């Protein structure tokens, strides 16, 4: 797995505990607000906020809850988001990224979709220990 960017989340803007659907809504609303405040277009705001919503919901539904952090990477002009949980992890990440793969009767489009909707996307997962997704939108 690639090392995270050294300046990822250089300046932290907000942290939210992810426990319920309401927390996922709050997380993607914060992301949308921060992008809009920096003049990012409506389409790009919607794309990245949707990606964040998918990953935050996965933390709640599959990861048993976790933490969301949003911050800035001033050097490279990215808005960075990290979603982290200490859940069961994902045994086969290539399989999980494929559209249509789900273990929960979902659509199985969240992970693959979130990657397509982000400008940068990386996932780190250890079975039995948890999952961390780092994703960014260019600002």
């Amino acid at each position, binding site marked *: 797995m690639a090392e995270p960017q050294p300046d990822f989340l250089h300046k932290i803007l907000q942290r939210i505990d992810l426990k319920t659907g309401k927390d996922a809504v709050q997380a*993607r609303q914060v992301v949308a607000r921060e992008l809009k405040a920096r003049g990012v277009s409506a389409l790009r705001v919607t*794309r990245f*906020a949707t990606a964040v919503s998918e990953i935050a*919901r996965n933390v709640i539904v599959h990861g048993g809850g976790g933490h969301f952090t949003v911050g800035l990477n001033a050097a490279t002009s990215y808005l960075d988001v990290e979603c982290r949980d200490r859940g069961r992890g994902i045994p086969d990440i290539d399989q999980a990224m494929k*559209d249509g793969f789900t273990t929960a009767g979902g*659509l199985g489009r969240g992970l693959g979709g979130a990657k397509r909707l982000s400008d940068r996307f990386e996932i780190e997962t250890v079975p039995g220990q948890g999952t961390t997704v780092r994703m960014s939108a260019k600002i």
Partner: protein
Amino acid sequence: MSGVASIHLVENALLVSIQDDVTDTEIIDLQDALSNRIADENVDGVIVDISALEIVDTFVGRVIAQLAGISRLLAAETYVVGMRPAVAVTLVELGMYLPQTRTALSLSHALAQLRRG
């Protein structure tokens, strides 16, 4: 039912407005209320207004599909109105096409299509 979603009778259709921060529990209440109203009021259509939605993710997409499934079983057609252009583009990238629903540009378009039958 909470104020998060509302159901109104308009002509021969039920208009359902979904709010941006709808939760799983509210959705179950909404589905329950909607199925009862479709049966009681004998409507031809259900119009789901999503103009308040900043995003439609797989969770909300599934909610819309389930509302459409309930309507279909009770012989009503489902229309989705008020989709923001950015939401439409994002849905295509997610690969969600909401096949159970018809999309109309506005409430009046949806009602006109329902009148035509």
